[in-house]
């Protein structure tokens, strides 16, 4: 048996520094090429160095490589590894028929030239460097709206095959390379360099929300800086540097001083005492003319939107039957606010809440009228206070079918000086008995309006008896729309509570009983830093049921629905043409020219700073190279430290550049084969796993460097090898010696990752969205709590790399297939097999929709021939034709399924849908083999 897991070296034995002197990963590159063994090459096949290394090891254990896999399997393998997309049936047929000796190389070049290549490998890189579209750290997990520019930069760079050493220098010190300062003119090259620095801010950063005492705030700041170091450590150096934050590393030759000496290179960009919050680490760097083009486009959008709105308002004005409000406020008169609204409930004179809402004030919690709009200004802390009408209303319409509704225009989701939009828009019906002292229960019905999803409804809010009774709506709260609820009387003293948006019902209603709706006022909730602005508060009651006016209302509301749908279609069309504001870049640059002292923190504790530390390179790698710790920067406004560190890391011939090459090559290998030559791809240090093929890793790293750090060159070496092209079929004699295939005697069968499966299914069903850059596709939590891109939203079927990467909100479907919820970074994924995956494949709306799409594709491309349809479906999903037994099983299945659906007019569609969906669940779909 091959030595699968070599015995761990005793970590504590000998000096770590002595061992580091000879540790394989810390040496300069020294590659050798193995001799050409005559028994290695099968007749007629040219075998390269990679295959010779593999064969050498196999031979030592009496094994030999497997024969070449069939052509279809090989093309599917190459396509999915390089582009993350399956080959088309046409490509499969062409490749199978291509008997040129260099066919593999030719097709490989086509794949490398495809834009999909950059998208696929960008996802791997973004994993390794901890990319996310949110800040993480705190519960808020606030948005990073500009991070996408870094994602696009990564995709572009990989597609251009930018020399990797240069690419790393850009990401560490692009601002210093650019020689640019704010206000200077910007070229596309400069902008690219500035976008690259986002690498340094990929880590979690809660400092935008940090609100504790000064010690806690300092800890939060250090966390962002330390996350940057940790990502550099594991993604570039293959080392776990963070252990040395508190003490000398126990298993690696990294001292605590090394840790802070490394920190000193990055500290000028993240100075703890002069901290810049993430939202302020942004520059405006539009290209010339870009801003003007954007302004013009924005004006087009605004005009179009205004027209669409005006059109609808006009229609409403013309068609809406007259209806006199029961109560209304347009907030024209700032002085009279207190006459109509109170900070308690109708009938009470003690102000409610602690502190109570100040009416007309400007320091929160307060409510005031400004420019004809009601501002609800919240003062932070906790809630339990509101602004309520002084008037009391009956919330129980008299007859079945009658309704009462309250609506308001939402002007803005924040007030002056508020950094972020409110995460709730709360309002309360039937307000009474604020302090919970009365005997009347029910009422105080809080609608906790959610900006992106359903709104929760709480009864008897606030206090101990407050309880959540469900949720309504689903459209979310956005500025510029009219919101509210309608209460309609049902039979038997029940009432429906329906979410009401822009004059129309939204979502499914809740049912209330009469005791839930005592008489009371209407109010807005002031809570938890959630300020917002509203206008046109109206309380309306319906015309009495049975009257002609009521009939007219019903007809009007039906027609309105059509009008609104038409307008929404028009708006969506206009919106799709909007451009993001150009030139806003979330970057990183030094805050000071003169670096501040960087203290070594005793025990890693920010409360116990020790001696200042100068920037220096870790001794076990540097070994006296005497490279400068700062380099001159063209514009002279930064310290040049990061530039120096980037140059140090990539200086040819050094141990550190060799380490960078090994770490990179090993991770690329891992993405091609499912497992790295060093399994612990985040750790090539003394405590990491040893490589299974040390000479091969060494040779590949040297190839990589000698090719000018070309990733595409590396891919050619790996994918064109006989080892990669060999069959994955088991062989009894090899299974008995090396069942885990550590010697690579066959291609290792392994499951695609989460994004790989999703993208494959979308592509196979023929509905891949062509999105290739720009802001993320939002993946909100829907009313059921599932995280996914809304099927009706633009980009819902874009490749997974363009989906929102929110740390705390990873799409449910992807999570089930081991997509990480990022904290630092993820240099390798787990690959589990669990029943939730079966459920997602069988029952999710996503797979069901794609199955329908695939059937439509078969309709388009194959007509009615059952044989042709089955054949093409297999080609699209599994990358091969069905064999006789699969074909007959499929025919049988379709026949039977059809018989079950005979009652349905679309029985044919249903049967084929079940067939298509079944294919998505097959091992031959989900696995690379």
């Amino acid at each position, binding site marked *: 048996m091959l030595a*699968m897991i070599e015995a761990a070296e005793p970590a504590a034995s000998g000096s770590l520094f002595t061992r580091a002197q000879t540790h394989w990963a810390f040496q300069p590159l020294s590659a050798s090429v193995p001799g050409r063994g005559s028994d290695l090459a099968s007749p007629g096949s040219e075998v390269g160095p990679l295959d010779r290394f593999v064969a050498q090891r196999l031979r030592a254990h009496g094994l030999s490589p497997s024969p070449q896999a069939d052509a279809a399997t090989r093309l599917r393998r190459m396509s999915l590894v390089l582009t993350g997309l399956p080959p088309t049936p046409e490509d499969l047929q062409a490749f199978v028929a291509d008997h040129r000796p260099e066919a593999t190389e030719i097709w490989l070049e086509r794949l490398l030239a495809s834009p999909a290549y950059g998208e696929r490998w960008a996802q791997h890189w973004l994993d390794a460097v901890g990319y996310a579209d949110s800040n993480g750290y705190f*519960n808020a997990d606030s948005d990073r709206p500009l991070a996408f520019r870094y994602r696009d930069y990564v995709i572009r760079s990989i597609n251009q095959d930018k020399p990797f050493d240069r690419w790393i220098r850009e990401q560490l010190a692009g601002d210093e390379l650019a020689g640019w300062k704010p206000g200077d003119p910007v070229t596309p090259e400069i902008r690219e360099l500035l976008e690259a620095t986002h690498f340094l801010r990929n880590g979690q950063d809660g400092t935008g929300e940090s609100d504790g*005492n000064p010690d806690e705030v300092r800890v939060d700041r250090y966390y962002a800086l330390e996350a940057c170091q940790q990502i550099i450590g594991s993604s570039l150096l293959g080392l776990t540097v963070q252990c040395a934050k508190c003490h000398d590393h126990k298993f690696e030759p990294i001292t605590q001083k090394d840790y802070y000496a490394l920190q000193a290179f990055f500290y000028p960009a993240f100075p703890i005492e002069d901290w810049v919050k993430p939202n302020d680490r942004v520059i405006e760097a539009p290209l010339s003319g870009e801003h003007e083009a954007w302004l013009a486009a924005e004006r087009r959008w605004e005009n179009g939107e205004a027209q669409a709105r005006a059109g609808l308002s006009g229609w409403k004005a013309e068609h809406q039957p007259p209806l006199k409000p029961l109560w209304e406020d347009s907030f024209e008169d700032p002085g009279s606010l207190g006459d109509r609204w109170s900070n308690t409930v109708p009938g009470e004179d003690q102000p409610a809440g602690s502190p109570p809402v100040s009416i007309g004030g400007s320091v929160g919690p307060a409510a005031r009228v400004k420019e004809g709009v009601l501002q609800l200004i919240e003062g932070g802390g906790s809630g339990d206070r509101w602004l309520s009408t002084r008037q009391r209303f009956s919330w129980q319409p008299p007859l079945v079918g009658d309704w009462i509704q309250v609506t308001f225009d939402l002007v803005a989701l924040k007030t002056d000086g508020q950094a972020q939009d409110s995460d709730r828009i709360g309002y309360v019906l039937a307000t009474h008995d604020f302090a919970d002292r009365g005997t009347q229960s029910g009422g105080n019905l809080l609608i906790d309006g959610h900006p992106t999803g359903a709104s929760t409804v709480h009864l008897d809010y606030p206090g101990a008896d407050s309880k959540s009774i469900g949720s309504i709506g689903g459209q979310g709260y956005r500025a510029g729309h009219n919101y509210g609820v309608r209460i309609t009387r049902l039979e038997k003293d029940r009432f429906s509570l329906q979410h009401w948006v822009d004059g129309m019902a939204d979502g499914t209603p809740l049912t209330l009983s009469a005791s839930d709706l005592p008489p009371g006022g209407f109010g807005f909730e002031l809570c938890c830093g959630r300020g917002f602005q509203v206008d046109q508060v109206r309380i309306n009651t319906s015309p009495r049921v049975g009257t002609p006016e009521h009939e007219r209302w019903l007809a009007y509301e039906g027609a309105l629905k059509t009008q609104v749908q038409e307008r929404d279609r028009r708006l969506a069309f206009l919106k799709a043409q909007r451009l993001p504001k150009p030139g806003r870049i979330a970057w990183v640059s030094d805050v000071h020219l003169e670096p501040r002292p960087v203290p070594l923190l005793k025990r890693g504790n920010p409360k116990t700073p020790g001696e200042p530390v100068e920037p220096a390179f870790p001794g076990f790698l540097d070994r006296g190279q005497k490279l400068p710790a700062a380099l001159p920067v063209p514009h002279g406004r930064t310290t040049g430290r990061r530039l120096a560190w980037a140059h140090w890391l990539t200086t040819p011939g050094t141990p550190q550049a060799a380490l960078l090459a090994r770490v990179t090559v090993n991770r690329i290998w891992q993405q091609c084969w499912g497992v790295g030559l060093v399994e*612990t791809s985040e750790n090539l240090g003394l405590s990491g796993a040893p490589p299974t093929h040390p000479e091969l890793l060494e040779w590949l790293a040297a190839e990589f460097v000698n090719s000018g750090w070309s990733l595409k060159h590396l891919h050619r070496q790996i994918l064109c090898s006989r080892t990669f092209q060999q069959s994955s079929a088991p062989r009894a004699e090899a299974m008995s010696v090396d069942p885990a295939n550590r010697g690579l005697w066959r291609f290792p069968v392994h499951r695609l990752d989460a994004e790989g499966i999703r993208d494959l299914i979308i592509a196979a069903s023929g509905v891949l969205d062509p999105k290739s850059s720009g802001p993320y596709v939002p993946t909100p939590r829907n009313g059921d709590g599932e995280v996914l891109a809304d099927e009706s939203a633009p980009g819902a079927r874009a490749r997974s790399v363009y989906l929102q990467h929110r740390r705390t909100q990873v799409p449910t479907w992807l999570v089930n297939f081991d997509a990480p919820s990022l904290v630092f970074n993820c240099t390798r994924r*787990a690959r589990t097999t*669990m*029943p939730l995956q*079966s459920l997602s494949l069988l029952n*999710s709306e996503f797979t069901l929709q794609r199955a329908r799409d695939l059937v439509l594709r078969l309709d388009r491309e194959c007509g009615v021939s059952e044989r042709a349809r089955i054949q093409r479906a297999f080609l699209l999903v599994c990358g091969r034709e069905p064999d006789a037994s699969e074909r007959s*099983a499929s025919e049988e299945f379709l026949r039977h399924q059809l018989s079950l659906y005979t009652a349905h007019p679309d029985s044919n569609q249903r049967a084929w849908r079940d067939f298509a969906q079944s294919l998505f669940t097959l091992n031959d779909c989900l696995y690379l083999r």
Partner: protein
Amino acid sequence: MNPSMDFLSRRGFLGRSAGSLGFLALQQLLSRDPLLAAGAVAPAHRRPKARAVISLFQHGGPSQMDLFDYKPALNRWSGQPYPGGDLEVHFDKQAGNVLGAPYQFRPQGQCGMQLSELLPHTGSIADDITLIRSMTTGSVDHESALRIMHTGRFLAGLPSMGSWVLYGLGSENENLPAYVVLSDPGGLPVDGERNWSSGFLPALYQGTPFRSGKTPVFHLQTPAGISAEARRHQLDFITRLNRHQSERDPANSEWQARLAQFETAARMQTAVPEVMDLSGESAATRRLYGLDNPVTAEYGRRCLIARRLVERGVRFVQLFLSGQPWDTHDKNAERLKGLCAMTDQPSAALVQDLKARGLLDDTIVLWTGEFGRLPISQGKDGRDHNRHAFSLWVAGGGFKAGHVHGATDEFGYKAVQDVVSVHDFHATLLGQLGLDHTRLHVPHEGREASLTDAEVTGAKPVPSLLA
């Protein structure tokens, strides 16, 4: 559940830990797969006292001195400057004077445990619980303190306690997830899904949230319009094709496991709704949990489901409240009243019910928040965060019954006697499950990661908590 991992990544994931418990436990998990059942290994380090845990988590930091830790000095000094020296204050600009504790304390049960009048039902199980008054933790920040309580570490990204337990012990019911989260229909708790994340452990060890409503688990229901027969036939078709494809690679255990899981998934489709369906529970049971009272009904329903889950072999159940309701920065006294009215009866009912059914002996019920609160006021009538002392109670699973452990200073600010860190508590809890906290680890980022990280935290079990 019948989880398994691909062989290569399993090896890669476990790295060089072969022989450590994690590996054995995983083998045991995998051995449930008939294809991998090559000699199941006894999973536990020693004979377990408990086989399941129910955590009733009280987000926000319940005020220990108003509920569990009687401090007469608070009322004597109420309104006066705090005489006890420096305090660590989170919202440092709102610190006030000593804030009295308005509710009466009374001795409860045979053991005479002093408990607040707000907790009459907890009082009725005083003889069944261990009350620890000397808990301490490492952060006064909610998120960090939650992570310490749930994962043992200040930072995000580590596996939760439930994940570790599952990793160590595996599952006892193949048709239900082994680690279930019952979150509040009102919304996620603070720090959301991280409270039950498997961190760097594979996703199969993460908590599975069961939501109230039609589909407790995502994608559980067969989509509308697909009849049971059509689905049955589809599953047969999938099995037939997958089996056929597997013939090419008969030793591929992962393929076999995946095949089996389509059947497991189908069984889950009935097992999950069954466990969530309370219609078979007696009127007396429903009353016990307060399902007849709107104030207690929702929390009580989840407590009752927790019992049903444990009854069916689920290993770890976590029950959460929406947001962080115990975070009483203002109106401390008033809010406590409401929160106790909601949680006291069902929490106690769970212990009583488990006991009556003979399940308490091997089930641990844990009632805790992430930290405690300060003896001084924040603003007019609130209490700020405190990491130097908080109280929790634990019942069953071999913990002492009717026992009070530890004590705080005169004002309840700081644990001073028989101090128990969160890490010590974790070590003790794992021990009761038959797991040695120093041996339940996996290699991660160059070292052995574990729940307690004893080398750094000095965690050790507390024998005096145990019967």
